[in-house]
């Protein structure tokens, strides 16, 4: 029987509400040997408001930072902390696809709403700290509490993969070929079904639809170091509960983390990328391991027909080896019909789309030629 998670901030009703006002000016906390320094912080129209049992901190801060190291910076993650106890108190801002040279400045915006228990002091500023900086040579600086090293390294690998791909198109078929691919990719993104998804703690059954156990189908990517062996989840109407997977390490290196993408198919045959199932492992070469999750994914109705889930497909979306290197699917892998339809473009591809949209094809070609 699924267990329930019960949680309430509103039980603090009846407490005195402290007058919350004034800009929530963040406090920046960087270590002495940080490769980035903050030149200025503009709190903008950041504010805090009492809402029911919580303080809502509305941050719109603009930071100006400088690369104080001798290497080019390709990614940065800042942790933004209002409090670390109740949900919604901690966030992060990650900027990937950067290319900031030594001594250069770059902006970072913190646009975020965080929550704090009502009676916490309103004089305590939101703290912004550095979780990590990724350099051009893939070296990393930072405490890495939010696993930003892994996230940014994966993003960097994807960026290199996609730039190489677009450059190869440019080389083969010129600017027009590149334009064609970019436009098709943007069209796919526009057509990609966007799904509102809820993650619910504890897997509480909220609908009365009969529950059925459904096997995962898997997309097999030939070069993937991880082979998904089998998987099941319980499906009831628009809820998917407690996925259980088993995977095998078919590489010759130990694997410490993997992420499985999770595609859902509805009763109309429509497919959606629902979310990712991350797993921290210590998987030796040749060994198998289960992956278990107790959360429930729910897909709320937003007009139109309610969603009924019929099937699921899993695929390996990233792998981190014990030595810190990563594996990601190739462009060839991503060109499979199923993945092309559901996968969002990488950070770099998104950035290149934006350059094309705003500045045109020439600017895009110039950008690619920088690398």
């Amino acid at each position, binding site marked *: 029987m699924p267990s329930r998670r019960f949680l309430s901030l509103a039980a603090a009703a009846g407490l005195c509400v402290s007058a919350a006002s004034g800009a929530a000016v963040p406090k920046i906390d960087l270590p002495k040997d940080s490769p980035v320094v903050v030149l200025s912080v503009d709190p903008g129209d950041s504010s805090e408001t009492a809402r029911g049992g919580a303080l809502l901190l509305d941050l719109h801060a603009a930071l100006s930072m400088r690369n104080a190291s001798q290497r080019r910076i390709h990614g940065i993650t800042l942790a933004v902390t209002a409090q670390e106890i109740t949900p919604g108190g901690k966030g992060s801002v990650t900027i990937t696809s950067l290319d900031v040279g030594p001594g250069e400045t770059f902006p970072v915006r913190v646009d975020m709403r965080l929550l704090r228990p009502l009676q916490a002091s309103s004089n305590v500023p939101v703290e912004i700290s550095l979780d990590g900086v990724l350099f051009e040579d893939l070296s990393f600086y930072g405490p890495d509490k939010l696993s930003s090293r892994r996230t940014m390294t994966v993003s960097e690998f994807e960026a290199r993969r996609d730039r190489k791909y677009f450059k190869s198109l440019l080389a083969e078929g010129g600017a027009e070929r590149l334009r064609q691919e970019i436009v098709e990719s943007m069209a796919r993104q526009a057509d990609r079904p966007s799904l509102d998804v809820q993650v619910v*703690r504890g897997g509480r059954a909220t609908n009365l639809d009969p529950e059925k156990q459904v096997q995962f189908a898997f997309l097999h990517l030939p070069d993937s170091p991880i082979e998904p062996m089998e998987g099941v989840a319980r499906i009831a109407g628009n809820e998917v509960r407690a996925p259980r997977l088993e995977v095998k390490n078919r590489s010759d290196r130990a694997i410490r983390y993997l992420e499985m993408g999770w595609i859902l198919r509805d009763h109309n045959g429509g497919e959606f990328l629902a979310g990712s199932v991350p797993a921290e492992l210590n998987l030796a070469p040749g060994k198998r391991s289960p992956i278990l999750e107790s959360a429930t994914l729910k897909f709320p109705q937003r007009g139109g027909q309610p969603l009924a889930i019929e099937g699921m497909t899993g695929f390996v979306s990233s792998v981190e080896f014990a030595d810190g290197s990563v594996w990601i699917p190739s462009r060839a892998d991503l060109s499979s019909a199923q993945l092309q339809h559901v996968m969002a473009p990488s950070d770099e591809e998104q950035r290149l789309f934006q350059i094309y949209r705003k500045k045109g094809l020439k600017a895009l070609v110039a950008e690619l030629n920088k690398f």
Partner: protein
Amino acid sequence: MKHPSESQLALFAGGDVAGYWERWLISRHVSRCGDCQAEVRALSEASQQVRAVAPDLPADLNWTRLADEMTGNIRVGLAAGEAIARFDRPAARRPRLGWNAALVLSCATAVFVVAFWMSLPQPQAQHLIAALQRIRSERIGSVVKPAAAAQDEVVLEASSSSIDVRENDRTMSLTHPRSDGVTVSVSLRGSAGMRYVDADTGQVTTNKVYYAEP
């Protein structure tokens, strides 16, 4: 011959008679009185039986499972206690009962957040909350009647316009994209992210909100 009282013999049996003189008198009597010797023997045996049964676990108790639960809860409780300590303010500056109750509640919330990731069933998490509430009120030094945790569910929802926290039928929207082309992602381990290309800077920015220790 005047016998010691039943209470005196009961204390004598365990070496608990106060006062050297009283102890000497009772000892002298018991050495000469068969009835009182028997009584002392019976009382000693009672103590021995208590000692014998004390290390036995209650019947039908799955000790292995209970021990595992308690060990896990203790670990969770220590972690939650460290998180709470960051919010600790001297009680003198916060005389209002409300502050204490809110901290107790925050403590409860922390437990659930942390407990989730250890997959504790709810009754166990409640055990831990009860314990933490007591510890918290002792540290504050006031008698706190914590509000009972309402039976609400926290739902994290990621949509194309925002990431929402929903509890008690209230929705709080947590992020604001500043551009179009927003991509939303959800990780089952407790975060939701919105990626967009910042309209002003052209940078690819991902904002995430966390619901547990990553």
